């Protein structure tokens, strides 16, 4: 018994040593890359992209389910994006609230029998609406089928060679599309997709669809998530991208070649981790094609979103992400440890499996074991104290580095107060939040074991939520259960399910969660060769090549700080 405890404790230790070593490494990489990035912004020449008649068009696809409070503002801000040629395709995924009605009123929409392709099978499309005043707005009305299904429908309806996928409740900065598109436009044969940064809008002042005052939110959960997202994006993605190993495009804000998405068959409707899964599938496909390719990340291209501020909502979200991570990885388990799949198979997926998906085992397990060991006298209190110190120190360093990177990147948080609050939470999050987070993810294991699918029956919970906090002219209300980015997770949380707390009346409506289409059962094992590439001569579309030595690893690390192995140390060792 003693040996077992000690051994497990030691194994956990080694586990976290490796993990944190990786994070440190990523942080250093991210630093270098960010400095380079900041300098290169001087000669980015975005104005040229904007004014050039040669710039290809982008279709912005917005899946919307029960978004009546935010959809109009969101669409307005998307229509106002600074990009020479783009359209906004809103897919109303069978909303049961006033989403469609508010859109019709706000944009003078009228039904039209728009001819839509059906390259990717989806749930039935009921119709389409267009506006004479806004010729680049298209609303597709369809039966509910889930977010993946709605996205597929949007991709079908898209008219331009590129699709930008975005959540209905997120706000893009005016230049964000231009910035996220630039790498692809500069090298369309190499770049398969790019992703932008997700930032947290909680606590920020929003005016007419633009974030005008950036603050760290007052709510502690939201503030901690600010740190999580900073680490995930400014350290994680920048770091991985710098060694050409970025594997994940967040579903909340990503840009793809439309033809590529169609070729691989669109999003998988039977998962809650559809963006992670799509990215993995893109990798498989592109590697199989054997040509070099890259997936890029633009730290300067910002999408604002709101994150949950309540434990319940946040917990459910993280559980879901854990499940989504599993579903996506399981579907692509053939890539694990196969040299054929390059860095993705040899480094990224194993990394995600071991250091992301399994980390609650070592975190919680290690904590309990060490606690037990100390209580039983097998481990000295001194040992425990030292590890607390080391883990705290490391965690603090990683968070501080992330904050420093943000300073370098954009200095968004103007007030000193905000910076110090973040530093405070960088310490505070180790006492309680990390443990709670691991518990949620452990519950995610349970969900997986029980074979839970879809979004679950969230409406069963009764929420005694506070009344909607509506900021004047603000886009979003206070509480969201949806987040568009997995801070430390490989999975991007799917969007499309209404946030629970946001609108109490949603809970009154019994929502049914449809599964995906039956068709997707046949796509249980994607084979790149099965899908047909259209013969393409479109001069404006250059489909990205595939595979090559370019390393692509999925990497969105969450700095895993070894949990303090004991509660407050009681006196000396």
């Amino acid at each position: 018994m003693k040996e077992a405890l000690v051994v497990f404790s030691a194994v956990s230790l080694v586990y976290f040593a490796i993990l944190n070593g990786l994070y440190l490494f990523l942080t250093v990489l991210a630093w270098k890359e960010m400095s380079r990035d900041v300098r290169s912004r001087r000669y980015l020449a975005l104005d040229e992209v904007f004014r050039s008649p040669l710039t290809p068009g982008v279709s912005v696809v917005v899946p919307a389910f029960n978004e009546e409070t935010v959809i109009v503002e969101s669409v307005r801000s998307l229509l106002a994006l600074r990009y020479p040629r783009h359209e906004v395709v809103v897919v109303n995924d069978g909303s049961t609230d006033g989403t469609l009605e508010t859109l019709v009123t706000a944009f003078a929409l009228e039904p039209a029998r728009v001819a839509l392709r059906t390259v990717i099978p989806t749930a039935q499309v009921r119709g389409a609406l267009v506006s004479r005043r806004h010729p680049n707005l298209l609303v597709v009305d369809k039966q509910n089928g889930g977010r993946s299904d709605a996205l597929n429908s949007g991709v079908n309806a898209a008219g331009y060679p590129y699709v930008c996928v975005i959540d209905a409740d997120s706000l893009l900065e005016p230049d964000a599309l231009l910035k996220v598109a630039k790498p692809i436009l500069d090298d369309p044969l190499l770049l398969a997709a790019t992703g932008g940064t997700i930032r947290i809008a909680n606590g920020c002042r929003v005016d007419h669809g633009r974030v005008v005052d950036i603050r760290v939110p007052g709510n502690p959960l939201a503030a901690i998530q600010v740190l999580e997202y900073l680490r995930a994006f400014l350290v994680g993605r920048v770091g991985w991208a710098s060694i050409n190993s970025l594997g994940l495009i967040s579903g909340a804000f990503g840009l793809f070649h439309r033809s590529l998405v169609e070729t691989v068959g669109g999003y998988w409707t039977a998962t809650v981790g559809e963006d992670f899964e799509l990215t993995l599938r893109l990798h498989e496909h592109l590697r199989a094609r054997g040509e070099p390719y890259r997936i890029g990340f633009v730290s300067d291209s910002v999408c604002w979103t709101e994150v949950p501020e309540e434990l319940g909502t946040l917990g459910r979200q993280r559980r879901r992400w854990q499940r989504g991570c599993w579903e996506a990885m399981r579907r692509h388990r053939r890539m694990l440890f196969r040299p054929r799949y390059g860095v993705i198979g040899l480094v990224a997926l194993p990394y995600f499996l071991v250091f992301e998906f399994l980390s609650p085992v070592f975190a919680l397990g290690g904590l309990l074991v060490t606690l037990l060991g100390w209580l039983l006298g097998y481990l000295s209190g001194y040992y425990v104290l030292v590890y607390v110190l080391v883990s705290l120190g490391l965690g603090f360093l990683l968070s501080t580095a992330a904050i420093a990177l943000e300073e370098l990147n954009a200095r968004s948080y103007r007030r000193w107060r905000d910076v110090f609050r973040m530093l405070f939470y960088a310490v505070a999050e180790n006492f309680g939040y990390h443990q709670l987070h691991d518990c949620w993810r452990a519950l995610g294991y349970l969900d997986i074991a029980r074979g839970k699918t879809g979004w679950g029956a969230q409406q069963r919970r009764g929420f005694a939520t506070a009344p909607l906090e509506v900021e004047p002219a603000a886009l979003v209300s206070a509480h969201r259960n949806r987040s568009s980015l997995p801070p430390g997770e490989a999975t991007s949380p799917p969007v499309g399910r209404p946030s629970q707390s946001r609108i109490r009346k949603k809970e009154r409506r019994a929502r049914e969660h449809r599964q995906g289409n039956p068709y997707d059962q046949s796509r249980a094992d994607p084979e790149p060769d099965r899908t047909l590439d259209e013969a393409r001569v479109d001069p404006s579309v250059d489909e990205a090549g595939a595979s090559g030595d370019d390393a692509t690893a999925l990497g969105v690390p969450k700095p895993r700080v070894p949990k303090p192995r004991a509660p407050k140390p009681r006196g000396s060792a």
Partner: protein
Amino acid sequence: MLVEVEHIGLIFFGVSLLLIVGMVVRRASIVRKERRHGQAAARLRPQAIAYVESDDAEPPQLRGRDADVFAGLLGGYGRLLRGPAAARIAAYLDERGAVDRQLRRLESRRSWRRAAAAFELGDMRAARATPQLLGALEDRSRDVRMAAARSLGRVDAVEAVGPLIAAAIARRVPSGVAGLALLDIGPAAVPRLLELTGDPNPNVRAGAIELVGLLGNAGEAAPLRERMTDPAAAVRAATATALGRLGAETSRDLLVQALDDRLPAVRTVAAEALGRTGDRTAADALLLVARNDEFEPARAAARSLARIDPARVVAAAAEPEAGPHLVEQADRIAL
């Protein structure tokens, strides 16, 4: 061993502290600089505007930081303007030695400095930097090459047409960047581009034709016509687009012929081009395509028809075999 581990913990905290102190210091210094700059800018702005807007203003005598701020203000205005005002700004910057400074930076060992220098030379409309910019088109860093290409467009360097095209073909510079630079240089690029429409490489032919379409006028349509029968599909597509843009009446027959091309992409582009020429006599051919062809060509044909003959579209949509695209256009017309 545990002793070392404990030190490591303290080291982490120590480094964090250093980072924090560094952040604080950096921020404070930036804020101070910004404030000073803002004050100077507010003071000098009226003079800057006066200099830009009057035809005979004398540049103010400034020294040191004021001079830099003034130059920065002028640079900002320069980006907004065209014509004599912009030329005046460029001349001032050159006199101040700003151009020389950037030319020196163009020799820097750091690629980002060279790229920034190449970029700024374009902002300054420094035409005399053209030889160096042409040299920078061959730089080993892609960023530098792209900045140089863009700047060559902004200084209207006619002699850069050939090198720009060569750089685009060799993929040393993205085709979009080179293309825009050529568009900026303008019609002067057309003769060379026309030569390239006969290049053995089909991508070169296609790219050149596309640019002629954007730059040329109706007179250039004639030499392009023979490209409609080019073996490469991309070339035929580019030719159709270009003919549509150039708008020569005589192109109509060729475009109608192209509606029968074996590749849907070419048919699509031909249909779009016919929409631009506005020629009603093409309506019958477009109608056929809109009814019967594959998705993309049919949609393009329906759209074009809606532009040139809406009444026809509405009538045709009422018929049973109209197909989804004509129906869509009829609905849109009725909006």
